[in-house]
């Protein structure tokens, strides 16, 4: 509950910092402010899918339901944040690139990840609790797209800019922008953790009710 309250405070505070306090960028002007929701959504989606990846491997190794639950719930949350990435990206692209969408490597691999995990969630929804093993395999293979998304903008020529924060030479942003970006990243990751905890509790209760109904 504390995490949820913290998320409820930090997200609006982050929006205020991004829209009111952050300086205007000289080249892009106002549209660059979308960075403060787009990049934190990307980072949170990566964190969520990494948790799903690790949970899926642990489930295949140990066959404990808690790892399956962790993987499933984290994938659901990852999909929410990835959806935000795919919505805010085109809204940012239109005023800056002059196009909502372009089939360049980074955008395309991100869209592929969305479809992979949409498939994963459908598999879980339609197959019921016994889908754990198949879903874990889909999640592990699907996760391989995450490093591909990150490196696509570095290794290939894309319209999408290269990473500005997570790069070997250090962040490319001025300190005033970087601080607000890191604040928003923390706010989004805390929101993810709060919702993850809540959803895990729900899934435990659901499993207990199912077990009670079967007995």
């Amino acid at each position: 509950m504390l995490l949820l309250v913290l998320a409820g405070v930090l997200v609006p505070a982050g929006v205020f910092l991004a829209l009111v306090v952050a300086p205007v960028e000289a080249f892009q002007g106002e549209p660059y402010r979308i960075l403060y929701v787009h990049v934190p959504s990307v980072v949170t989606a990566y964190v969520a899918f990494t948790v799903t990846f690790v949970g899926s491997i642990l489930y295949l190794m140990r066959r404990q339901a808690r790892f399956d639950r962790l993987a499933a719930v984290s994938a659901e949350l990852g999909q929410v944040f990835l959806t935000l990435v795919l919505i805010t990206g085109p809204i940012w692209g239109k005023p800056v690139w002059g196009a909502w969408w372009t089939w360049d490597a980074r955008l395309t691999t991100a869209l592929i990840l969305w479809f992979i995990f949409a498939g994963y969630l459908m598999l879980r929804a339609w197959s019921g609790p016994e889908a754990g093993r198949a879903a874990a395999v889909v999640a592990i293979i699907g996760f391989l797209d995450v490093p591909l998304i990150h490196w696509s903008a570095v290794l290939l020529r894309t319209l999408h800019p290269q990473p500005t924060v997570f790069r070997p030479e250090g962040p490319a942003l001025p300190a005033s922008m970087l601080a607000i970006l890191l604040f928003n990243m923390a706010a989004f990751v805390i929101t993810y953790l709060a919702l993850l905890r809540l959803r895990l509790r729900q899934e435990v209760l659901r499993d207990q009710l199912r077990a009670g109904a079967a007995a």
Partner: protein
Amino acid sequence: MSYVVAAYLITLAVLAGYVWTVWVRHRELMRAAGDRR
């Protein structure tokens, strides 16, 4: 600026929408648990 406002409104709406679905699920589970007792 309208692009920025749209991006932020949609982000907050999606997050709020998800939280609402979690709340609905919570209510249903609590009701089911209550019925069992």
